[in-house]
């Protein structure tokens, strides 16, 4: 019995060793920023949510309560609430959507089911007619990403392929009619595409890439959300306000007074909306976008490294895409949330074997991560501006500038230290990847970030 027990333990240990070995072999040369960001976001979520609540409701209520305004300007009635509550919701929206996105990634089988339902993907056994091309594609996927499930929806010829999770240890590649068309047109490009998707599976970032879907969903509906939560309530609230003031003091009941109130309050809140839309949301989502971009660049590099001519093949696909959608703002915006700009990808692919390309790919996330507090500072300045317009004495321009500088001083410690340390130690962890061959580059990029972070912590 003891011998059998020992044999079992030995089997488990050797299995774990093999799994760890396999994992080490699959590690990319770019640190798994999306995992690092997800972990820090989860830790900070309650605090960030609280801050967002304070940022909106606290500041707005302080700004709009009657005591800080000239008497009778803003009576504490329902239209006050109509103005305040919706923008509070819009400020909380990024956190709620990101939280939901991450919650979905914690339940990969649920996400997998949802993805399959949404894109009508089904197991290939259910696709009745396996043609030679399909068999070739399956064989290729089995070779480059063993143990990866394949789901298909061939009727859709506008999509090509994407990777998604089925469980914690199981992923799938969804293939569409676009892939079989590509297989016929340019086999090398189709193979490079599958290698890119296989890289997402092997790097295990399919589990968390889904949190970007929430961002995409919010961004795609942003105009409607802004209309519903800001423009409409502000218009109603400001209109009601001007009416209330007109009826309360007949001597002021002229059209110009109503217009003045509408412009002042409407303008102030719109300034706030600009802050919210362009800076605050950017501040919340910038690290995630940067992490997604880094994961995509990492997958590109992997496809280029694993396949002779892989970089050239991906270049052909991206250049064709650039030609087809040239000048399409909608496409640029839509793709910007999920992929780096095509020009950047092409530039990096052309230099995929050079250190400068690796350095740029490595710095994408640290830049995005540290940009977040800058955007937040800009958002706070915009909010101060709105407060100043509403209630002059509360926030003079000097305070606005001070608010921005204070925000900038927050860049630091956590963001700089975390990214700097991750960069510095990554060649030790991923010693079997390209990172292990160029540790000096990682040290050269990571050390200044660590030094800056320490300096910031010590001086602030």
């Amino acid at each position: 019995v003891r011998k059998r027990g020992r044999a079992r333990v030995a089997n488990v240990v050797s299995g774990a060793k093999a799994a760890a070995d396999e994992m080490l072999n699959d590690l990319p040369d770019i640190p798994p920023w999306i995992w690092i960001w997800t972990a820090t976001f989860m830790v900070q979520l309650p605090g960030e949510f609280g801050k967002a609540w304070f940022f909106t409701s606290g500041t707005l209520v302080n700004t709009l309560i009657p005591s800080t305004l000239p008497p009778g300007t803003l009576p504490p009635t329902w239209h006050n609430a109509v103005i305040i509550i919706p923008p509070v919701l819009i400020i909380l929206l990024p956190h709620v959507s990101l939280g939901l996105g991450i919650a979905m990634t914690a339940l990969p089988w649920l996400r997998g089911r949802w993805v399959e339902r949404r894109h009508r993907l089904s197991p290939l056994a259910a696709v009745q007619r396996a043609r030679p091309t399909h068999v070739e594609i399956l064989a290729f996927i089995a070779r480059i990403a063993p143990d990866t499930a394949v789901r298909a929806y061939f009727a859709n010829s506008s999509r090509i392929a994407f990777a998604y999770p089925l469980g914690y240890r199981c992923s799938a590649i969804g293939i569409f009619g676009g892939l079989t068309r590509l297989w016929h047109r340019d086999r090398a490009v189709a193979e490079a595409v599958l290698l890119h998707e296989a890289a997402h599976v092997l790097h295990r970032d399919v589990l968390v890439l889904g949190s970007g879907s929430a961002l995409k969903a919010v961004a795609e509906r942003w105009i409607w959300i802004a209309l519903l939560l800001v423009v409409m309530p502000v218009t109603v609230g400001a209109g009601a306000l001007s009416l209330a003031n007109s009826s309360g003091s007949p001597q002021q009941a002229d059209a110009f007074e109503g217009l003045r109130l509408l412009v002042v309050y409407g303008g102030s809140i719109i300034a706030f909306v600009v802050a919210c839309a362009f800076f605050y949301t950017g501040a919340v989502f910038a690290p995630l976008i940067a992490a997604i971009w880094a994961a995509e660049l990492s997958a590109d590099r992997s496809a280029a490294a694993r396949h002779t001519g892989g970089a050239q093949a991906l270049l052909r696909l991206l250049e064709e895409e650039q030609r087809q959608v040239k000048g399409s703002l909608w496409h640029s915006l839509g793709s910007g949330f999920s992929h780096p700009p095509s020009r950047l990808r092409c530039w990096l692919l052309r230099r995929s074997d050079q250190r400068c390309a690796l350095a740029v790919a490595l710095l994408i996330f640290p830049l995005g991560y540290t940009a977040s507090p800058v955007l937040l500072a800009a958002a706070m300045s915009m909010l101060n501006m709105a407060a100043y317009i509403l209630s002059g004495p509360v926030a003079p321009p000097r305070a606005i500038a001070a608010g921005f500088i204070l925000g900038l001083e927050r860049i630091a410690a956590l963001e700089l230290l975390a990214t700097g340390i991750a960069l510095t130690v990554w060649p030790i962890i991923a010693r079997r990847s390209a990172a292990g061959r160029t540790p000096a580059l990682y040290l050269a990029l990571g050390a200044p970030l660590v030094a800056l972070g320490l300096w910031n912590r010590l001086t602030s």
Partner: protein
Amino acid sequence: MAESDAHALAIRIAERVAPDEVDIAPDVLDAAIRGGREWEELLRQRRTPLVGGIGPDTTAGLLLIVFDWLRQNGPTLLGCISSGLNIILLLRQVAGGGAKSPEATTARPPDTQAAIASLEVSILALQKRLTTQGQSQQQAAAITQGLLEELEAALTTTREVVERLERRTPP
């Protein structure tokens, strides 16, 4: 009609109009027959990429356009064919600027003439749709001719497919 007949027709059409779509032709035909929201979504063809994915394929799927045309104009086409109209001749006349020959329009009942006129308009609309998707005039004409020739060559199967497209009963 056996399932394979409809799919074989779809594949033959794909070989003529969009060779790189041969492998997906049966699936596209089945989706066209199922119709509904699925078909509308396929026609919309969103061009933004997915998170964790690559693409989209920026070139248009021609089979979608061709089968959508068949969904809308199948009965008219069958009516014209069964009245003895030479479809290819009609196509040449459409390509030549729409001048009608006596064979195509005369000595036929008024409702057949109306069907022929309607078919002419729909053929022109198909060619215009193909050109807006990036095909040249010549390519659009060749695609239309390939489609009509294949449909005419397998008339029994075509009739069954058109009926299924109307009834929405997938094989």
